[in-house]
């Protein structure tokens, strides 16, 4: 819900870019140069003509002022959404300084946004599985019957999976290292047939472990054991406490909905990052409630170049309602009503010590043994080199959390080290059994949030 007349920031626009190349190309077009006939209406439509390589300029239209996220249209043949022209136009608009004057939208802009918005509306019923996606429509009896059928399929799939794990352990994990070992892909496909996408994902990830370097048998055994635990959990879900049963259902891959009662707070956007595989881009946004003093995770998905939801810029705060999903310690949430546009905020998450963060993770495993990490802010920590790796050391004691090995390859690590300069900083990140993944940092003194991912 971007309000009419509220200009976006440049950061907000750049986060729409589907990839780094688009971001660069868009930035180049974000100057008055190639544009003519630009304007924006108070109905939230921005338009312009962009000189391109063709003889006719491209007509580009973006609608920003509706609740479903921006809609784009452009004459160019790019298959990226948004294309660089749309990004450039938005950058021009966001840059202010009168580059895009207020005007009446010309006729050629009109038929498009409407059509596009309708399309966007349909797409939203896709992978994100909105609040009512699972229930479907029609009479409750039919819905119940469908749910039972699906549970039956999953049970058959889990039984099959258990059998395969047992066979694997009987023969030994060493066999999984053999080239051409096709068990995982085939088993994952079986889990997809069984309508258990959560299991399918875990199985597919198992396939990568034997080639992940020294120590792989330990990791493979851990993950096989946790998969087995999840399977057992599913088969005995009736005997589990409600919360744990909900966690199992969600981990297996049954859709859940954010049916917790909405909590209104000033939600600070503390971190955001995208991960992508061949099929799907996943955007994770961590919000931190200033009064609630806890973090919730927003997840959104984009398949095959489809735009993700417009990103919330790190460092801004939202006066909004968030509803929790029933599983995993109410950690995942969905953004509900907003009571104003995002605004800059000085709030920072309240931090803890390294020891407390490690203990938090351990305690949370009681509710969700499959949990990889918990969100946590560390206060007064110093990044310290430790051989080839890095750790975040408490400034006031001799304890430290190692950073995850992957952190060492990212430019974010160096931003963190530079920001600290050997002095304590506050760092928000994910703390888990692989170590700590820093996502955002704040200097000890005044200063804005520095994204590390």
């Amino acid at each position, binding site marked *: 819900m971007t309000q009419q007349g509220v200009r976006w920031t440049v950061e907000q626009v750049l986060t729409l870019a589907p990839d780094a190349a688009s971001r660069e190309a868009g930035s180049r077009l974000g100057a008055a140069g190639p544009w003519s006939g630009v304007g924006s209406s108070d109905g939230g439509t921005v338009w312009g003509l962009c000189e391109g390589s063709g003889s006719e300029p491209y007509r580009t239209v973006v609608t920003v002022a509706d609740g479903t996220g921006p809609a784009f249209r452009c004459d160019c043949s790019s298959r990226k959404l948004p294309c660089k022209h749309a990004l450039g136009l938005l950058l021009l608009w966001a840059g202010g300084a009168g580059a895009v004057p207020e005007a009446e939208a010309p006729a050629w802009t009109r038929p498009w946004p409407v059509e596009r918005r309708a399309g966007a509306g349909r797409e939203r019923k896709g992978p994100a599985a909105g609040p009512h996606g699972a229930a479907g429509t029609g009479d409750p009896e039919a819905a119940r019957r469908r749910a039972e059928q699906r549970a039956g399929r999953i049970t058959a799939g889990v039984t099959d999976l258990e059998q395969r794990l047992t066979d694997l352990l009987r023969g030994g994990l060493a066999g999984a290292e053999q080239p051409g070992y096709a068990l995982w892909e085939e088993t994952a496909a079986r889990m997809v047939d069984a309508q258990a996408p959560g299991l399918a994902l875990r199985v597919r990830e198992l396939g990568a472990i034997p080639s992940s370097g020294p120590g792989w048998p330990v990791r493979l055994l851990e993950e096989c054991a946790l998969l087995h635990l999840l399977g057992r959990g599913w088969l005995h879900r009736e005997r589990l406490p409600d919360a744990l049963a909900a966690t199992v259902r969600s981990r297996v891959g049954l859709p859940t909905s954010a049916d917790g009662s909405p909590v209104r707070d000033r939600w600070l956007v503390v971190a955001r990052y995208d991960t992508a595989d061949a099929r799907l881009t996943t955007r994770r946004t961590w919000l931190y409630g200033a009064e609630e003093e806890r973090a919730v995770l927003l997840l959104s998905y984009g398949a095959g170049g489809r735009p993700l939801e417009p990103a919330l810029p790190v460092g801004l705060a939202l006066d909004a309602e968030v509803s929790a999903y029933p599983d995993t310690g109410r950690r995942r949430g969905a953004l509900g009503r907003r009571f104003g546009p995002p605004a800059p905020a000085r709030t920072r998450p309240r931090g803890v010590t390294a020891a407390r963060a*490690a203990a938090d993770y351990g305690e949370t495993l009681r509710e969700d043994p499959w949990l990889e990490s918990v969100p946590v802010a560390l206060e007064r920590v110093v990044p310290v080199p430790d051989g080839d790796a890095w750790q975040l050391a408490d400034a006031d004691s001799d304890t430290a959390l190692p950073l995850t090995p992957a952190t060492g390859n990212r430019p974010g690590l160096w931003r963190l080290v530079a920001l600290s300069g050997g002095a304590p900083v506050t760092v928000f990140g994910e703390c888990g059994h692989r170590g700590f993944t820093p996502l955002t940092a704040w200097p000890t003194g005044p200063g804005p949030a520095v994204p590390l991912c």
Partner: protein
Amino acid sequence: MTRVDALPPGGSAAAAPAVWEALVTSALLGTDRRTPPGSGHGPGAPEALLDAAAAETVRRRAGLRPARAARRPDPAPGDPRPALPAAAAHRLTMLLADRPGPAAGGRRGGAPDLMELLPQWLATANARGFAAPPEALPALLDAARGRTDLRPAVLAFAGPRAVWLARLNPDWRFALRAMPGVGPVPPGSDAEERVRRLWDEGLFAERVALLAALRTRNAGGARELLASTWAAERAEDRLMFLDSLRTGLDAADEPFLEEALADRSRNVRATAAELLSALPGSALAGRMAARAVTCVSLDRALVPPAIAVEAPHECDAGMERDGVVSSPPAGRGERSWWFGQLVEAAPLRTWSARLGGRGPEEIVALPVSDGWGGELHAAWCRAAVRQGDGAWARALLGAPTAPEAGGPGAVSLAERAKLLGTLDAEERAAWVAGFIATHGLSEAFQLLGMCGVPWAVPLGRAVVDALDIARDAGSYPWSFSGVMGLAERCLDPAEAGRLDALLATPDEPENASPGAGSYWAEAFQRLVTTLRLRAAMAGELEGGREE
């Protein structure tokens, strides 16, 4: 290794690692071959193993404790400079994010080239004395790593924290070597002692940087520091150290340089001689003047009088000691080679007395007999550059509007560019403006490079007018891409308003290169956009001062 390197979970679970090891071994080999701990052999063994491993995995994860902290690095030294204004900090991020790459088909389009604006941004930020935002340091150092020309400005802007950071990342080692302006030794009560220690114990590159930095602050002190270890330095090091005396060269350096004329290394001797000849009052300059005047005389018998040249017949030991190189490069006669070196090293004021009290203009206008004119004028050009003599440079350059694109003495564009360097900024800009107005842009690139940024108004207008003329003539715009790029970076942003008229795509004149019109419009478009951007950049950096 994906596991947290944790402290042991405590005494009661001391047996746990052994259990886990046994589970892993059994899993790796298979329960058929190795019975897992705590279960019997048989069909239930794999499941028992998985049960035990699941419990153990969760237990191990839940029991993780933080590791012991490694040795902390010493904190980075403080940076007293004020922080950047927020808008400027944001701009810096944008400039650094723009990686130059082959844009669509190698064509630049109408958008500005942000990376090219970084040097200017850095110069302005440095002039205003702002501190770099710490989180921008990695991107700054990465940019400087790839472009050595950016390094001095980046390192000055990045400040002491960049050096601290560079010690932790081998990719940025270059920051430890060069420390222009700031100097590797921060001022303090024991500065002198630390300078001494770095000079005695430092790496060669650190010592060169130290000497250069010290020379700008305290020329005499730098010379004395060098003299204190001079005899013990290696020949190639002596050459580099001597070269750093170019900065702040004055008469007090003469005794040291005189001594260096007797150095074992020929290159060191030559450099010492060159430095001495740049001091018109030095004994060496006097000796060279005495030699040079015997070669040049005024033949008053001719009408008008002409300069007669009698080049030296030999290069004696005294000349060699004073830095004259005796063997000429291939293809040059010995005598003209020696002659050129003598005239180049003689103080220019010698010639007025020798040639009948004439001033530089009159002397340069005199005819020269027997085809020695080129040799003599070229040597005077080198002398004017070396001695920084504006009056002679002006005379040798001649009027910018002179036909054949050349003054009486300046033979090559490179020489002209060097002569311009001795004039003050305003005069230089006016001369180049005059040159462009007469001769167009095709030869102006090198001369423009000598002019201060932003270009003075007359110069900027001359360039824009010349571009406009080139477009009307139907030339290909890419013949002017070098000048266009310079104009984007150097034209005064205040001129942007005057350029609007050039943005329209004109009707193509007859015999114009096909399609040139739209390319020109695009090029001008980029010029205007870049100028606006530069104005915005300057404004953002200015804004911080008022706060």
